[in-house]
């Protein structure tokens, strides 16, 4: 077997031609290893320096399929190299050592080694190492595609407060996730060929939802019939039935938002409490480490409850969207801004009026932490914002309870369209228990949420114009949340905190957003950082609520989303655009935010964030963690 042979064979004849990087300081062993591997028809690169190996790996992550490394090396400990490779390149690593101590082997495994071989290494052992590559690939595919199927379960379980809702949501989400996962590999694959599958679910991605909302708005919410919408959307493989069901959900969402908005108005009085709640939330969120948020699911819930949903929304926007992994920060910020520009005060009040315990909280809670956006992709549902009633900011989704439910289910369709109220509730399906997926799952459950958001965003824009009220706010927030959420999902673990929430502030007007954001954050946090954005809600702060939020935000990541937190609260309530024309500007900012967020957000989040664009003030991200 010559090397040339191996090279020419390429990867098609896997495992022949598998590219292995061998690292061993002992030249004898290295030569032997290299020769053995070549005998197995692998493509081998050898080096005696761990640092060189790392450099090679970093140069091009796709250059190698597998790494074999000695444990004892002079320049770097084999385990360290193992860690690096695992973290940075996620390649399977096999440890090699003359020492077969159980302790050492254990250490290798805990550090992430795929296998541990003893010297002298025999060719039989090397002949099967390709299995690790296959296994890893499969796992990756699974993870990215199905967003951690296992998680959905956990994530769902973690759903916020509303067990029922969550449960339902979870289940739904799970199904959707699974479906989504299947369909989602392309992330943009709207429909699968109906004929091909039993009942392929349409993945209402952000893009799709945005189109949907745009179409609906164009037609006018009254005149929007599925057929026409379908035509306007002009998306292949989308059936009228898909649109119809999505529209139905969207309408529900809008209704919910309007209820929330109304309640918000009532809650104005409650604002006082809300503030504190918010503060709490803010603090929670502000913690920046969504963890707090996440951890305090209860807190969130409570917090959300106390403060007007609007706050939540605000939060949601930011944190969630932002949280999403830190991505959103830019995006989220925008949201916050958007909102703030509106009528912060109004919104705030509205937010406050968010039924502290009511809907808002629900919303928040409902918000599946899916906001966690990590999985935001899944979280489409987050976009429920749709319901944002055009009412005054109160629309924030007081009916969170209902919203939540609606969200959960309807996320996919996201009444967002109706986001007039801007109360996009981003449901952060925190479910992502493992945090990534759940959030996204929730919010995005079907991606619809996300798409909703997108639609909301546009809607919010519209709203803004028309409503100037909080609506504008909400949507941005939502967007943020969405974005946050979205962004969050991706990295969840690490990033989240920072970026996402920062943007909260933009939520300004959307105090609710804050809450939402917070929720998002919470939810997101769970998921990872999705909700960090919630902290962004701070930006919403101007709204008044925002203050508390801002406080929180200052923390940094803004509660949003400590993924753990978010999961619970999930609700990012995006404050629906303040009806009172609070947010005229906000919406704009929201949009920006949303867009920013959206950009940041990896596909998943983007969906959410997009929603934000709508300026759905009432984005309530439900993170049903």
């Amino acid at each position: 077997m010559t090397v040339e042979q191996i090279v020419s064979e390429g990867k098609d004849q896997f495992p022949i031609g598998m590219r292995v990087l061998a690292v061993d300081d002992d030249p004898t062993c290295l030569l032997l290893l290299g020769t053995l591997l070549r005998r197995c028809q692998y493509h081998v690169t050898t080096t005696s320096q761990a640092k060189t190996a790392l450099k090679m790996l970093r140069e091009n992550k796709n250059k190698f399929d597998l790494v074999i490394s000695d444990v004892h090396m002079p320049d770097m400990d084999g385990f360290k190299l193992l860690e690096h490779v695992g973290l940075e390149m996620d390649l399977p690593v096999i440890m090699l050592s003359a020492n077969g101590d159980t302790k050492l082997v254990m250490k290798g495994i805990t550090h992430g080694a795929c296998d541990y071989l003893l010297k002298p290494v025999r060719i039989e052992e090397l002949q099967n190492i390709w299995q690790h590559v296959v296994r890893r690939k499969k796992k990756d595919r699974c993870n990215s595609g199905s967003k951690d199927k296992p998680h959905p379960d956990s994530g769902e379980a973690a759903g916020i407060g509303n067990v029922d809702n969550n449960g339902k949501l979870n289940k739904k989400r799970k199904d959707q996730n699974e479906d989504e996962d299947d369909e989602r590999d392309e992330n943009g694959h709207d429909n699968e060929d109906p004929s091909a599958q039993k009942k392929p679910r349409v993945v209402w991605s952000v893009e799709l939802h945005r189109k949907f909302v745009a179409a609906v708005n164009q037609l006018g919410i009254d005149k929007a019939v599925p057929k026409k919408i379908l035509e306007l959307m002009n998306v292949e493989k989308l059936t009228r039935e898909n649109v119809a069901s999505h529209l139905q959900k969207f309408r529900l969402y809008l209704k919910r938002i309007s209820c929330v908005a109304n309640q918000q108005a009532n809650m104005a009085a409650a604002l006082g409490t809300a503030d504190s709640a918010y503060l709490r939330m803010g603090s929670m969120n502000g913690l920046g480490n969504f963890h707090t948020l996440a951890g305090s699911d209860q807190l969130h819930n409570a917090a959300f409850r106390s403060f007007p949903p609007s706050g939540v929304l605000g939060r949601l926007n930011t944190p969630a969207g932002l949280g999403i992994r830190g991505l959103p920060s830019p995006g989220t910020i925008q949201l916050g801004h958007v909102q703030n520009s509106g009528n912060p005060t109004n919104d705030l009040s509205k937010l406050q009026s968010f039924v502290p315990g009511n809907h808002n909280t629900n919303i928040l809670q409902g918000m599946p932490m899916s906001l966690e956006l990590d999985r935001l992709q899944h979280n489409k549902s987050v976009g429920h914002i749709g319901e944002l009633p055009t009412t005054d900011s109160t629309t924030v989704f007081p009916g969170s309870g209902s919203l939540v439910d609606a969200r959960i289910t309807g996320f996919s369709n996201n009444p967002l369209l109706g986001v007039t109220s801007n109360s996009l509730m981003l449901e952060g399906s925190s479910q992502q228990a493992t945090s990534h997926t759940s959030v996204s799952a929730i919010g995005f459950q079907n991606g619809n949420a996300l798409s909703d958001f997108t639609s909301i965003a546009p809607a919010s824009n519209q709203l803004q114009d028309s409503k100037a009220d909080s609506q504008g706010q909400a949507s941005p927030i939502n967007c943020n949340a969405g974005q946050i959420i979205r962004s969050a999902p991706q990295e969840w673990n690490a990033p989240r905190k920072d970026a996402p929430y920062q943007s909260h502030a933009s939520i300004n007007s959307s105090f609710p957003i804050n809450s939402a954001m917070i929720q998002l954050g919470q939810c997101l946090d769970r998921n990872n950082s999705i909700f960090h954005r919630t902290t962004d809600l701070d930006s919403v702060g101007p709204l008044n609520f925002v203050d508390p939020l801002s406080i929180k935000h200052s923390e940094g990541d803004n509660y949003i989303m400590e993924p753990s937190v978010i999961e619970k609260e999930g609700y990012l309530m995006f404050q629906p655009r303040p009806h009172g024309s609070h947010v005229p500007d906000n919406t704009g900012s929201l949009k920006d935010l949303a867009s920013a967020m959206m950009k940041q957000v990896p596909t998943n989040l983007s969906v959410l964030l997009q929603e934000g664009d709508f300026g759905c003030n009432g984005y309530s991200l439900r993170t049903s963690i």
Partner: protein
Amino acid sequence: MERNPIRRQLAIMRQSLFDQGHVDEQFVQLEELQDDANPNFVEEVVTLYYRDSARIILNIEQALERKPFDFRKLDAYMHQFKGSSSSIGAKKVKAESTLFRECCKSGNGEGCMRSFQQLKKEYATLRKKLGAYFQ
């Protein structure tokens, strides 16, 4: 025809290496890796081994001169030595290095010294035999 006696001799030598326990199955693996593409693979590996192991032995000797013994370091060296020895199938040498490591672990300085002497002897024998084999 002329080669036959040589070959036979080689075979005998080889067999004695095994019989005397100087090399083990790993050596066979090395031989199997030798083919047309790598005609002198075994020799290459062994030569490499000589170079590397000589270096290690030197290190160990130096370490043994410093009192008190730095067992940790000694153990590390020996671990390395053992690894490469086992890679070429140097059975006796490997066994001896295991002993050495035991002494290190138990802090047996005396034992280390003794073991090391023994190890050096085995190592020298191996080199001689293998050298003759390859000639």
